[in-house]
């Protein structure tokens, strides 16, 4: 086991001493975060949340179910988001809406309680006169949550919002819209978003230095020297990979902490999940680099593949630009479809109070992907390195 630690510590020393790439990686990520986080913060339509949405509530139902809904609308959990005023007649409410006295109207239909008790879809209708997307998102989230079922309400209100709505921050107009109904009034900021997406993206690219390390130490004459020693070269390799993983993780942990303490990026209350996910993402990046380096004989191919995947994953996860893939497939890629998406979903879920089952599932899948790549790396290592 001592060989593992020697190799791990040596790899860390070597990485830290390769000061130029080290600084470049940290600095370039930080600069991107600062530029994107500051320059694009204006595109975050979070101002809509500052003003509470004024809603005219028309209740045509006399049953108990609608009372629960009204209690829910008036609960303290939502009081920063909407303010309801009861109006008796829908036409009066619509007229007031046209005169901009309200931002929206919610009408509870007369058969609401009856339908609700029979288990049928209960009817609630919303009216808006302008195309205020933020208002629409708030009303839509609340009503859909209530309409669907009680667990949906838990996600949409108590735990803020569904995770999808946090990671798909961009609309067709390429304007970032935050749909999150943040617990305790915390509003997602561009800085939060870019801190995490840039850190996750960079962790894929930390594989470059791992590739260099592996080529230098295990695919050159050094291999013969290591093989001729009594130490098991597999242990030296895993120690080396552990060292590069630790270094890559510390690099990005530094960037994320810097963004938090200096620029106020929100990391939520559970840092274990945030940094645990970053560690898993680092592990994935390292294993990907190792598997490609040991598996492909052409030394340039792994570089090209990592570059393509790094950019591709970021793109599909909506890291820089709006994903070109629309609809459910696009939503899938943004949320779960790439390692970056999984990491972002887990971290944003943790920060903004997403469902823990989704967070841990994403982390689990990420860990599993790393384990699969580890298995592949071992197979390739046996072919190319082990005697």
């Amino acid at each position, binding site marked *: 086991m*001592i*060989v593992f630690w*020697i190799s791990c510590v*040596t790899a860390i*020393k*070597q990485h830290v*001493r*390769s000061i130029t790439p080290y600084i470049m990686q940290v600095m370039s990520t930080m600069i991107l975060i600062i530029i994107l986080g500051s320059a694009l913060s204006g595109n975050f339509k979070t101002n809509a949340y500052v003003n509470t949405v004024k809603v005219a509530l028309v209740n045509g139902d006399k049953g108990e179910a609608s009372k629960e809904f009204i209690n829910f609308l008036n609960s303290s959990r939502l009081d920063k988001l909407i303010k309801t005023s009861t109006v008796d007649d829908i036409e009066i409410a619509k007229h007031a809406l046209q005169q901009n006295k309200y931002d929206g109207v919610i009408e509870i239909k007369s058969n609401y309680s009856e339908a609700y008790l029979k288990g049928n879809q209960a009817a609630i209708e919303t009216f808006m006169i302008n195309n205020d997307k933020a208002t629409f998102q708030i009303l839509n989230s609340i009503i859909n949550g209530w309409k669907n079922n009680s667990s949906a309400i838990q996600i949409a209100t108590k735990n803020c919002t569904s995770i999808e709505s946090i990671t798909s921050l961009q609309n067709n107009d390429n304007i970032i819209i935050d749909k999150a109904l943040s617990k305790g009034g915390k509003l997602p900021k561009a800085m939060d978003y870019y801190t995490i997406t840039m850190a996750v993206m960079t962790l894929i690219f930390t594989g470059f230095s791992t590739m260099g390390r592996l080529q230098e130490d295990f695919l*050159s*004459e*050094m291999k*013969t*020297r*290591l*093989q*001729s*020693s*009594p*130490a098991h070269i597999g242990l*030296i390799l895993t120690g080396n990979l552990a060292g590069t993983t630790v270094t890559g993780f510390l690099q990005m942990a530094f960037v994320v902490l810097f963004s938090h303490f200096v620029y106020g990026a929100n990391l939520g209350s559970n840092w274990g999940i945030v940094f645990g996910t970053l560690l898993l993402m680092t592990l994935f990046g390292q294993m990907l680099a190792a598997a490609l380096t040991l598996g492909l004989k052409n030394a340039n191919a792994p570089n090209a593949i990592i570059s393509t995947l790094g950019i591709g994953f970021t793109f599909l996860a909506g890291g820089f630009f709006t994903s070109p893939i629309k609809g459910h497939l696009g939503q899938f890629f943004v949320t779960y479809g790439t390692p970056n998406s999984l990491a972002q979903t887990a971290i944003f879920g943790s920060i903004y109070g997403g469902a823990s089952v989704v967070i841990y599932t994403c982390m689990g899948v990420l860990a599993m992907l790393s384990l699969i790549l580890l298995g592949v790396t071992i197979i390739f290592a046996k072919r190319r390195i082990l*005697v």
Partner: protein
Amino acid sequence: MITIFRDAVKRYGQNLVLDHVNFDIKKGEIIGLLGSNGAGKTTTIKALMGLVPIDSGEIKLFDEEFSVNKNSIKRRIGMVPQEIVVFNDLTARENLNFFGQLYGIKGMELKTRVDEVLNFIGLKEYEKVMPKKFSGGMKRRLNIGCALVHKPELLIMDEPTVGIDPQSRNHILEAVRKLGNVGTTIIYTTHYMDEVQNLCSRVLIMDTGHIIANGSVADLTKRLNFEEKTHIVFKKSSSELIQNLRNVSGIRDVLSTDNKVTLLSQTGASNLEDIIKTSQNYGIISIQSETPTLEDVFLTLTGKTLRDEEE
């Protein structure tokens, strides 16, 4: 015996690279292992280090049968690769520490050994400097040092003096001598014949997977069918002169190029006086006599020169 090779055979596909190789190495010997490219030298070394398994035959090291990954034996062997294989971003001391630890040395023993090796290779004052700032010779010395930290009983050195300045070369050759003097068994491969002549107690010459010669430099040169070469440069040369020289007693062959004539004489001919008498009327400019060298032995046995192969 430190090493015994018995009928070792190794094939790579259809290519027979070791063809029933046999040799023994005694403790404290410095063995020169010579061979042109493809002769089987590298495979022999790899088999000795336990890096490639042989297909048949037997390799014994330190009286134990040796196979791939036998760590108890690997601990007793040191390897100096031909290329400089050190970590450029670790200091000289850290490099030695790393390789020492791979061989299970730790604590005070490691520190002491690393200090000894740094002194031995003359890099003590550069112990905190990274090899990327070293000259080629210093890197070569560190390359050797990394194989010495664990005090190997058998040291395999693969062309340790390639591409370095004469001063560093002398330092390395002196170090090899010292290691030999303290009883380290050394297998030394090189393309520089003078190094082998000066250092090695015995020479193994390999060709096409066979050991074709095995003995001391003196033994091997005695086996050639000439003992002495005499080079004479004349003012003018003629066919009559060449014929007269062929008739001198003990002459086996006469080679002529322009005004330069090379005479190959039999063992114990003692014919220098007769050669001079025969030549004096043709205006001798210079005369030089030499005994056969290892280069001649290699050339005679393999039909190749090591340098040509290298190029």
